[in-house]
């Protein structure tokens, strides 16, 4: 199969065109994943654009995005494939009065017609170009992880009744994890690892400018700097990029073009979601004011 990208630089440029500002690490790993035909495991705090990366890759490669949202209790039937019991049952009942041999019937009801494809199988069987996003893989139990392994390393799915289904084309696979638990070694080994952290101030500013076009350069700069300062506090949950963007949008809507301690205090609840964090930040702002008066 042809590679999707020519070099690291082009990955970066393409992603930028799709409004995703990648740094060297991100672009490099995406490029490698394409070349080595390996899945990417993206890890990092919530709201730093892990899922967005998959969407953007789908966009620039013109691929269809197939998304498997993981959750506790996800099983084979929801992730890989499922036999359509009801249809099979109907079929058996319909045949009850005729004299079709059981063997023939069995062959019949375990055929493609009665197979419900779920995201993983769908990605494997797709004829067109697809990007498979396995979102928040850390949410499934460690046992369930095992069902991903075959597809990740060999791009195939084994169905006992049908045999092994191999991929018609190698899809780009992206797994995201919020790191709520350690993923198994077996899974990690099969993937390229990419950690996306909170962006540097400059990049965050660029992201704000990019995503909130109405914002002035000056305000974007202030927003990025304040957010960086807040992140240095010891918080339960530091503000994520998406929260930064929300905040920037709010400020624009309120018609504010200069953030001072007062506006920051009034709107900080958009950035922070825990009361103790909010109090801490407000205290921090207020403290500075006291000094000045």
């Amino acid at each position, binding site marked *: 199969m042809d590679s999707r990208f020519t070099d690291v630089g082009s990955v970066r440029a393409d992603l930028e065109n799709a409004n995703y500002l990648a740094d060297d690490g991100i672009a*490099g790993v995406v490029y490698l994943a394409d070349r080595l035909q390996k899945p990417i495991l993206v890890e990092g705090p919530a709201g730093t654009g892990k899922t967005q990366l998959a969407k953007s890759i789908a966009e620039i490669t013109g691929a269809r995005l197939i998304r498997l949202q993981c959750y506790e209790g996800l099983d084979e039937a929801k992730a890989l494939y499922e036999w359509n019991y009801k249809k099979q049952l109907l079929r058996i009942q319909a045949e009850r009065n005729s004299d079709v041999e059981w063997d023939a019937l069995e062959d019949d009801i375990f055929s493609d017609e009665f197979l419900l494809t779920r995201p993983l199988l769908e990605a494997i069987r797709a004829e067109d170009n697809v990007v498979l996003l396995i979102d928040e893989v850390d949410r499934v139990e460690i046992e369930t992880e095992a069902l991903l392994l075959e597809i990740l390393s060999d791009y195939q799915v084994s169905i006992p009744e049908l045999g092994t289904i191999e991929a018609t084309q190698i899809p780009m696979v992206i797994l995201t994890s919020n790191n709520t638990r350690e993923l198994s070694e077996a899974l990690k080994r099969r993937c390229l690892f990419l950690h996306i952290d909170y962006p540097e101030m400059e990049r965050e500013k660029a992201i704000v400018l990019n995503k909130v076009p109405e914002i002035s350069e000056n305000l974007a700069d*202030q927003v990025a700097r304040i957010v960086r300062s807040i992140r240095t506090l010891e918080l339960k949950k530091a503000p994520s990029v998406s929260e930064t963007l929300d905040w920037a949008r709010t400020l624009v809507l309120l018609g504010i073009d200069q953030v001072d301690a007062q506006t920051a205090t009034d709107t900080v609840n958009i950035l922070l979601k825990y009361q103790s964090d909010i109090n801490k930040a407000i205290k921090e702002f207020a403290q500075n004011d006291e000094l000045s008066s």
Partner: protein
Amino acid sequence: MLDLLAGFIIELRAAGLPVSLTENLDAMAAIQHIPLEDRETFKYALAATLVKNHSHWKQFEVVFEVFFSMRGEQYEITDNALDLDDLDDDEVGEGQGEGQSQGQGGGGGEALSPEQLAKMLLDALRKGDQAMMRALARQAVRRYAGMEPGRPVGGTYYLYRTLRNLDLDAMLDQLMDQSRAEKGDEGLSKFEERLEKDEFNQRIEQLKKEIEAEIRRMLVADRGVEAMSRTLRKPLPEDVDFMHATRDEMNMLRKAIYPLTRKLAARLARKRKYGRRGPLDFRKTVRTSLSYGGVPADPQFRFPKPHKPEIIVIADISGSVAAFARFTLHLVYAISSQFSKVRAFVFIDGLDEVTRFFDGVDDISEAVHRVNTEADVVWVDGHSDYGHAFGVFHERYIKDVGPKSTVLILGDARNNYHASQSWIIKEIQQKARQVHWLNPEPKGYWDTGDSIVGEYATYCDGVHEVRNLRQLESFVENLI
């Protein structure tokens, strides 16, 4: 190239990073697709294939820097980047004329006076000029670190010397003064000032990093790659010994404990949910069987209500083991939803209940801090006296220990030759469900000197060596 990579991987493994054979092969495949002259991409390519845990990233970076430091041209560029002419023009513009002649003469920048160096550094910091900062860091190290080939001192010593001479704190003040002056009459509001300060702080941090890297590079040049990577090998956060952690390592631990507790809580909750399978739930099975035409294809089970232990923590918070107590309290409270009740007591030679500090507080580190500052734990002289502390516990709180309680005692049992009063532990054991003793000392030191952990151990259901986060985590996990 293959040999080089193999050597690099051996270094990584020696530093404690798990690198499997497949990952090794992946890395080799990866570098074939990467332009080798692009150092950053090369680094990320190796990282993506070899490092699968973010907490190992820092280790990887150090090993990478050291291992590949002597093998690249990149570092020579910095010399040329120090374009002194340019610089001096700048300074002339600002009325600092005298720099010019000296600067040009020096070429390598050796002839700069300390004041000039400081001035240039200030300038670079103010503008956030990265290339210049790197070049100046190099200069500063050459000038101030006073490195002598073959001298067996660590990099931290040189770092200290360099930083002392640069006096970055004063520099920060100057920077702040400058930006205040720029603002003119009205000055900066404190809010802006704070932001400005954060900005400069960050740049200074970066400068420090540059200096550190430069020192490392020079040391590598002096002593060779192998020797250096041995000295730079640092333990991973989860392996840092509580009792001997440096301040930096403590910070690292503090940062590591939050994700760890979150992970542990998620894992325990999951264990609770899925770990046990109860007896067949007949009614439910019949009900679901209706959707399969009366065939009980999908048996349903009853999930027993899980038992939640009540935890009583009794922690020694005297100097030597304070850090350990802090982390354990933090961890226990972070997963307190897994327990029906948590009560905490701390002691040195007196004992105080500290549960109140944690009640209704959602910032655990704050509460732990209050424990250390506000708890009333000194009875006579502030040296550990386990016997007396247990005595106080027995007198006031023994009635609260019941068959549901699991008692955790934290401490090194170094009793300063006071009476052990181990009968109290015996009594606690009789009343409680379990008694566990967590000792932050290595097993080899137990029962040496004034340590009497053996005497208490007789009455404990388990005595555990808990020296680092990894051991602490596994103990707590097994507890439930």
